[in-house]
């Protein structure tokens, strides 16, 4: 399939932001602080830096095949058998990720607001809307991502209220509360929140400008890391370490404390607005899964693949799972996802250079 140019460089960046940010903003401060203590925000900044390095490598890999996505060049680089095996692993990873994203959001909504609604219903809504978003193809997905991020962005300004509290001493000392092994453990817990940036591998061929600058990936990663770091700092100074590590979604708790004369419970609105971002994350995974399946089975229709995959995910999402369990699974999965993508990118990069070197050394025919 020859990719049609449908997204701008800015949309490329915002798509990365949309694919990442849904996973960590609510629970990340707690899961990282449990191990890293007051150093949580430093750990998150460090993980952001590492992930940017991996994303930069992924961007480099994608730039070698400007007109193709991994569903095509993986078969060229790894061969038909190994390539399909890799795509199959990718498909499983993407499906699992999409299900986890929908389930975490559904569990948060049903444990905070819609107490009697089955969480499967919320997860199903997320998945159905995600299928619709993927049907609009990558161009539509990127535009939807833009709108969702713009809609939610103003709510982040609410964190300025932490300045009023003046409890920055709760962040100190930056180091010393946790051992190096604890910091490492915390960084692995943070991995899930940074999973999903690999959408850039699939989005790159759809760019209007075929040579997208690396700085687009840089600002997208800096934006996501900054939001995570600020959220964690806000949660630590606002709630204190002891309370924060006992709250499932500290960010929502802070929003529930913010009151305005017009809207009393901002967290309720924020949670529903957040659905747009959750849909982007689930949809990007669904898109990647669809393309992986198309790579495995050549010639299958894009629309039919999405509908089949969407229906399959809808079935396996059914059933209520407590939020704590879903979050615990996501921490393990995030570790796997980041390792899988990082190893794959490095292997592909090596293969690309070997192939280039062999082409250079090959005699003219």
């Amino acid at each position, binding site marked *: 399939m020859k990719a049609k140019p449908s997204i701008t460089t800015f949309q490329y960046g915002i798509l990365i932001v949309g694919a990442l940010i849904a996973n960590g903003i609510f629970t990340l401060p707690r899961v990282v602080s449990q191990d890293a203590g007051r150093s949580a925000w430093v750990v998150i900044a460090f993980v952001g830096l590492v992930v940017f390095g991996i994303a930069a490598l992924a961007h480099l890999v994608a730039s070698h095949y400007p007109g193709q996505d991994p569903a095509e060049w993986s078969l060229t680089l790894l061969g038909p058998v190994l390539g399909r095996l890799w795509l199959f692993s990718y498909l499983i990873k993407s499906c699992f990720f999409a299900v986890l994203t929908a389930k975490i959001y559904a569990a948060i909504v049903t444990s905070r607001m819609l107490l009697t609604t089955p969480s499967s219903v919320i997860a199903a809504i997320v998945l159905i809307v995600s299928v619709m978003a993927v049907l609009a193809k990558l161009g539509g997905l990127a535009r939807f991502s833009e709108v969702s991020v713009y809609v939610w962005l103003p709510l982040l300004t609410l964190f300025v209220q932490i300045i009023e509290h003046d409890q920055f*001493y*709760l962040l100190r*000392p930056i180091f010393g509360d946790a051992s190096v092994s604890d910091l490492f453990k915390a960084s692995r817990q943070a991995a899930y929140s940074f999973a999903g940036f690999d959408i850039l591998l699939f989005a790159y061929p759809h760019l209007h400008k075929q040579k997208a600058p690396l700085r687009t990936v840089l600002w997208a990663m800096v934006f996501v890391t900054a939001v995570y770091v600020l959220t964690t700092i806000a949660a630590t100074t606002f709630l204190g370490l002891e309370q924060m590590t006992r709250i499932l979604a500290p960010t929502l708790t802070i929003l529930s404390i913010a009151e305005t004369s017009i809207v*009393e419970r901002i967290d309720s609105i924020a949670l529903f607005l957040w659905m*747009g971002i959750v849909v982007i994350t689930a949809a990007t995974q669904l898109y990647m899964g669809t393309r992986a399946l198309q790579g495995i089975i050549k010639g299958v229709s894009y629309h039919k693949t999405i509908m089949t995959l969407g229906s399959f995910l809808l079935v396996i999402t059914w059933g209520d799972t407590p939020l704590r369990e879903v979050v615990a699974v996501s921490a393990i999965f995030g570790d796997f996802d980041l390792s899988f993508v990082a190893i794959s990118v490095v292997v592909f990069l090596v293969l690309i250079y070997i192939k280039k070197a062999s082409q250079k050394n090959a005699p003219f025919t």
Partner: protein
Amino acid sequence: MRLLLKYLILVSLIVNSVFLTGCWDALPVENRIFCIAIGVDWLPEEPHYEITFLNPLVEETRSEQSRARTIRAHSISEAIAIFQHTSSHYMSFGILSVLVIGEEASKQKQSFTIDDLFSFPDLRPNAYIIVAKGNAKALLSVMPPENQRMGLYLRDLLDRANNQRDSPPPTLHEYVIRMMTPGMDALTTMVGPIGSLDPRATGQKTGGDGGGEVDQSEGGGSQGGQSTPEKDVEIMGAAVWQGDIVVGQLTLPETQYLSLAQGTAKGMLLQMLFAPDERLFPQANRMVTLIEQETASWDLTVMEGVPHYRLTLKVRSSPQNYEGTSDLSKSENSELLEQIMALNIAQNILASLQKITAMGSDPLCLGQQLRLKYPDLWDPQNWGENIKNSQFKVECEVTIRNIGLQILRIEPVNKKPN
């Protein structure tokens, strides 16, 4: 055109999905009861808790603005369950204004109560938490002036106190942070009912052993039979917490001096009581002064394992009602007043600090200073005991900006009294 159709379907799906949840979670407003205040009292016999819920009345034929219902139970969650079961209404805490802990109840661990309340997702964390002088039920049974709702009346009172820095009342979430974090404790406003001699009968019915309900309209008494309904409430001081238990009380002036020590007294009207002084206070030795600006800087050194705290305070104030005879426009007199005020403030702050540390409480977050400066000596578990050994030194410098007089004195001149 086809793409536009897809977008339209996508947007309509998102919008409609929000309404789908109404299939399960729809709760008509007539099936809800809003709680504007909760009172928690503790009785020595089982079941220990006596929980009072204050609900606004919305019926057109109402004779009162709100109704107080009291339920005996083993916990607050049990009381809520009994309430919801007997009234067939869902209780909402979305507009909760104040949580009132009775004086006896405050001596018991409150974390169970707070934990139970926070398990309700619609709880308003910005509700105030206060301690009632006496019991909470009596406080919530006060009929405020002009037939206002007690919960809202209390909230307005606490809002004013907060703005005037009289006795900053913490909200539920601020209280929880201080309750949970080692090296800091809460200081909550203590409010008591005041004033009326008008006896009024109450309609009470007592519950069984396993929990029961007492229904009374507002204005009912506190302990059954004839009672003296109060007409108003007033701030009487502050309750000093150690973790989730109240360990002592402070008077309002003591609370104000602690606020000065914290550096949060800007805009506060401080009532000062001076020792008799022939030069400045020959007759009246009471003066109210406005704290216009202050900086409180703390310094900590540890000597032989004992924390020594040193507070340097710089205050700019304007006396409001100096009633002495000295001419304060003369610099020697105003400088003398500044010195006397500085000494007075330093002594009172020191007395307040010694009083709270003797209780083992740390509302000034002194433990956090120790944790940051001497992490090796920081023992969070025993801080409640260790703080009792702390030593304090307070130095204060007062600058008078305005003595509040346009002219020197207004009095009859060359007139003989009749």
